[in-house]
């Protein structure tokens, strides 16, 4: 049973939040209102006399108010100081509120300006500013709770069928025109209204009295930082069952222009509802009781202007939800399964589902672990995960899984690494921009625009890759060859994106190669400068000499390239008994007069090669001659033992030579 359950669970990639906000369900006495700006549920009992219960994600208020007629709409101001209540079609009343003293008893109101205008609704915008939408236009007011006065700020006349407001982007969408196919978007800034370009929605023949676009088919959301208009379009086919629906995404550019940019293909028809979770568009389909997920950032098929997207994974139902209900006794609790996709559901943006009958407010949530299993395309999966918030762990887990699937996944690795490093590169660039201080004005725009695109991308840098994936290969399951290939591929990708490769990656690849005894490959990597030079690396190479003799020369070459490792080079040469080479090196870097004669003489003595010792001894004698005008060593150099040794080696013959003073011999004086 358990296993079965889990197996089933794994299939659901959407779930309802575990702890729904509960409220009194709608009845003849109780009216329930929802404010999607502050995400508060208002349960108004008997017009407020018996109490108003306000439940939000972080509030739970309870107050009473006078019953002055049926409430049409009720909303708190953003700072919770003013409660706005609409009871008639022509006016909105305001009551001050404070958590300490509760609701003020004085109401002040504001009728809409236009005669005969009907208020369609109102939204709190910035501070205590309120936007009232009537069928004749919109009006922006400023409410002063202290003075209990209202001041009109702006108004705009327009025939309005319905409106939609997005509290995130402060965009208001107004449906106008007789058939309701014209859409006017307004951007609300503090104390002002900005008109965006009006656009029209092509409409098929509609029945009279029915609008081309209905309010419930439109959602406003912010996807990847860009305000978007999500529009559901039904396209009736030849017969009803054949019809399919599409979702159009209009993106708003710089709060100026609106462009249709994406199209989501639903392939089914019927009633739909739209949510937005983590920049994903979720389309619930009531008839099939399934939901689909779309990501407009993933590449789709372009028709020149519009990107066509298909669902990321196959449509799946929301995970079944069991509601905790009181049982027969107080202590007893029962779990009652909820009806999903019920007709009682009301969906609010961005991710709210309310069942008015049950009195529950859920947030719809993604179950990435389940979704991961449904996306088979590895590159797509990585790209998808990179665009999710808080998916780092899962992404790492996914990459780890890929590694265990080697060599099957080797084909995709380069592309995946490139995707990761593309983001990494941009992240580094913006870091540098930040450190460089404020660049020129026009630059700011460019970089912020670029940065915007990457703000939503997950960053997996070298240290993440190293500590979670590259260094975690298990020897038993993966062929070492694969490890090297993956490492090389990652380094290649880094290099291709111009990212300096950190030493620990180099170290890792070298130790892996060494472990595999793939010395020749190591040699090639070094020769072609795939691995950057460094002293620690040179030392590592030196230590490998026993296993791979050529490593010695590689190390020396590397030290030479580093340019600041004279001492090390000399020591290495001496330790190998290459004393003459060491002296030549000393001479080439102009250190002849500084080096310790003793060190070289000792090394030469240790080789037990008389000829070599002779050469070294003579070299330092010549140095002495140059520095002190005598071949003798100074006392400070402590070379007496070597002088003795020299005498011991060449005494007899040396004396002979010295005693050879013949009158016939004429010498050239040097």
């Amino acid at each position, binding site marked *: 049973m358990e296993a079965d359950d889990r197996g089933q669970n794994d299939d659901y990639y959407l779930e309802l939040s575990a702890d729904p906000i509960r409220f009194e369900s709608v009845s003849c006495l109780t009216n329930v209102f929802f404010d999607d700006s502050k995400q508060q549920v208002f349960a108004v009992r008997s017009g407020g006399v018996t109490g108003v219960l306000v439940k939000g994600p972080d509030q739970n208020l309870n107050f009473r108010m006078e019953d002055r007629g049926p409430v049409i709409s009720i909303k708190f101001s953003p700072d919770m100081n003013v409660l706005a209540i609409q009871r008639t079609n022509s006016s909105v009343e305001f009551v001050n509120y404070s958590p300490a003293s509760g609701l003020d008893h004085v109401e002040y109101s504001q009728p809409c300006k236009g005669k005969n205008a009907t208020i369609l609704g109102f939204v709190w915008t910035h501070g205590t500013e309120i936007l009232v939408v009537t069928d004749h236009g919109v009006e922006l007011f400023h409410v002063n709770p202290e003075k209990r006065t209202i001041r009109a700020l702006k108004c705009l006349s327009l025939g309005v069928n319905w409106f939609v407001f997005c509290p995130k982007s402060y965009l208001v969408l107004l449906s106008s025109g007789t058939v309701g196919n014209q859409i006017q978007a307004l951007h609300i800034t503090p104390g002002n209204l900005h008109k965006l370009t009006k656009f029209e929605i092509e409409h098929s023949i509609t029945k009279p009295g029915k609008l081309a676009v209905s309010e419930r088919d439109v959602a406003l959301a912010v996807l990847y930082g860009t305000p978007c208009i999500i529009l559901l379009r039904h396209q009736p086919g030849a017969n009803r069952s054949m019809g399919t629906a599409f979702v159009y995404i209009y993106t708003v550019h710089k709060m100026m222009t609106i462009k249709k940019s994406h199209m989501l293909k639903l392939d089914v028809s019927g009633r739909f509802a739209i949510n937005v979770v983590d920049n994903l568009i979720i389309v619930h389909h009531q008839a099939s009781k399934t939901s689909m997920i779309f990501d407009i950032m993933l590449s789709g098929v372009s028709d020149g202007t519009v990107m066509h997207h298909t669902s990321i994974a196959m449509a799946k139902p929301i995970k079944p939800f069991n509601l905790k209900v009181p049982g027969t006794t107080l202590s007893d609790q029962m779990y009652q399964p909820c009806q999903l996709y019920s007709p009682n559901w009301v969906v609010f943006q961005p991710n709210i589902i309310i069942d008015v009958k049950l009195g529950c407010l859920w947030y719809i949530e993604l179950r990435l672990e389940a979704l991961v299993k449904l996306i088979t395309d590895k590159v797509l999966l990585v790209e998808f995960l990179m665009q999710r918030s808080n998916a780092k762990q899962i992404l790492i887990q996914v990459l780890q899984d890929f590694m265990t699937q080697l060599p099957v996944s080797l084909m995709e690795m380069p592309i995946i690494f490139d995707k990761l490093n593309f983001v990494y590169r941009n992240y580094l660039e913006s870091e540098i921009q930040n450190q460089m201080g404020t660049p020129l004005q026009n630059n700011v725009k460019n970089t912020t625009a670029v940065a915007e695109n990457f703000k939503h991308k997950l960053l997996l840098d070298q240290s993440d890759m190293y500590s979670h994936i590259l260094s975690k290969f298990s020897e038993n399951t993966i062929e070492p060859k694969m490890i090297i290939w993956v490492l090389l591929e990652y380094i290649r990708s880094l290099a291709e994106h111009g990212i300096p490769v950190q030493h620990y990656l180099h170290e890792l690849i070298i130790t892996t190669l060494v472990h595999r005894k793939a010395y020749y490959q190591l040699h090639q990597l070094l020769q072609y400068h795939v691995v950057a030079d460094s002293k620690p690396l040179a030392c590592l190479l030196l230590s490998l000499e026993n296993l791979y003799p050529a490593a010695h020369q590689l190390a020396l070459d590397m030290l030479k390239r580093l340019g600041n490792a004279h001492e090390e080079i000399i020591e290495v040469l001496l330790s190998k008994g*290459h004393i*003459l*080479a060491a*002296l*030549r090196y000393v*001479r080439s870097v102009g250190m002849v007069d500084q080096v310790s004669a003793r060190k070289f003489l000792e090394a030469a003595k240790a080789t037990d*090669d*008389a*000829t*070599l*010792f*002779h*050469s070294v001894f*003579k*070299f330092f004698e*010549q140095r002495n001659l140059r520095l002190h005008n005598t071949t003798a060593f100074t006392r400070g150099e402590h070379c007496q033992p070597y002088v003795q040794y020299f005498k011991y*080696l*060449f005494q*007899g*013959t*040396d004396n*002979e*030579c010295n005693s*050879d003073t*013949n009158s*016939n*011999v*004429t*010498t*050239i*004086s*040097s």
Partner: protein
Amino acid sequence: MAAKESAVETIDDGIAEPGIEPGASSETMLVTTDSFDEYEQEMSSSIDGDRQMKESTGSTISEIQEDSTQDIPISASPQESGKTLSLDDAEMDDVAHRLGQSNIDGDPLRCKAWLAQKKHIFILSQAGKPIYSRYSSEDKLVTVMGVMQALVSFVQAGSDMIRSVHAGDTNFVFVVKGPLILVAVSKTLESVPQLTLQLTYVYNQIISVLTQSQLNRVYDQRRNFDLRRLLTGSERLIDHLLNFMDREPAFFLGAIKCLPLLPSMRSSITQTIIQTCAKIKNLVFAILLANNQLVTLVRMNKFFLHPMDLHIIQNLVDSSESLKTAESWTPICLPKFDSNGYMHGHVSYLSEDCQACLLLLTVDRDVFFVLSDAKQKIVEKLRRTNCLEAINESMNKPTITTADIGLPDMRHVLYKCKSTAQFWNPGFQPPYTTDEEIERLLGLYQCLHHRLHSPSRPLKLIFQQLDKETMLAWVASGFELYVTFEPLVTKPDAIEAVSKLLKWIKKEEERLFILNSPTF
């Protein structure tokens, strides 16, 4: 460490002013050839044996012996000399040595010490009969020699000539001359031309004992003749020659070293010999050697001595201890002079107190007593003029080293004057104090020599940084120079040292070289 090498021709100007060619002389008593001319000739002659035979029919000796045309008895002289020499201590040692070698293991091919020898020399007849082996008794090597013969005849069957086989660091060099096959198996750095030259020397050593005509005649009569019968006692000469070539640069340089003497002293010695011997008929060469160095050489007008022949003579003198005790009368064939006839040599050391060896070479067989008298007169005269003392002094004095000359960076040098076929080298100084080091150094010189004279790509100048020394080799129009420097010498220092050295040799040339060519 990789050897650094550069061949820069422009250094020519930097080293010495043009015109300085120390030791150069228009007069020479030696035939000046490059040792590599020898090699070239070897190569062409060995392919076309008949042609060489024809060329050598014109006998130089018969030219000198106007009155005598009779043949020299085949076996008398060499056997005679063989008998006198067979009592020699050196030979006894040598025999004992060779017996010891073969005693280590019955089969030399299984003896590690034998296999490890650096340079083997084998001589066999065209029929494959063993004649000589350097390190073991040739009797034991019948099969190996058979293989060698097979290799040679197999290639010969295709009208071609096997010259060398290279296997790893071992070179197998073949020289086919007349009825003999000479093979060198060497692990040394010597090049094929150098080894060929050495084999030619060995062949010439055999000719100097037997003459070319006798050798040919013997094999014409019996193809499978055992030449050892005729060579008995001469193995010692070959052994000595091979060792001699391993430590003397004279052979590969194709030059002679002179005993340093004051020019006045030398000319006094020369005059003494000329005056004493002028009247003796048919005396072709008078040669005075001290410590293997030439003191003087007086020649019959229009005849010259080839350095190769002089080396054979030097080898004979140096290898025969018996000559020190008594005057001897030795038939000797000088292969370059006339390979078909014997010269007769009166060989004697000047006196107990002066170990210089005087050779009087004539074509007459019966003038021993005439020459013996002449020798006595020469010695008396030399003693009177203090020449013996001068020779002794020069012989006993340690050779001058480059340190003495005041060239601290220079360890050793070989200087060959091309026009007179003479060379000079200083004494060995530390670190070249052991035999191994000296042999190693000569090996390096041989390498340089080979590279300068490489037939395919000759070089004019080599500056090479080696493991333990830096070497310079330079061929100018008048001389060849091979210099060993301290390994850490810089190029400018080396150039300066070479130029100092040349100035010094120029200053000393009259003492170091024989610049005239006296005749009777």
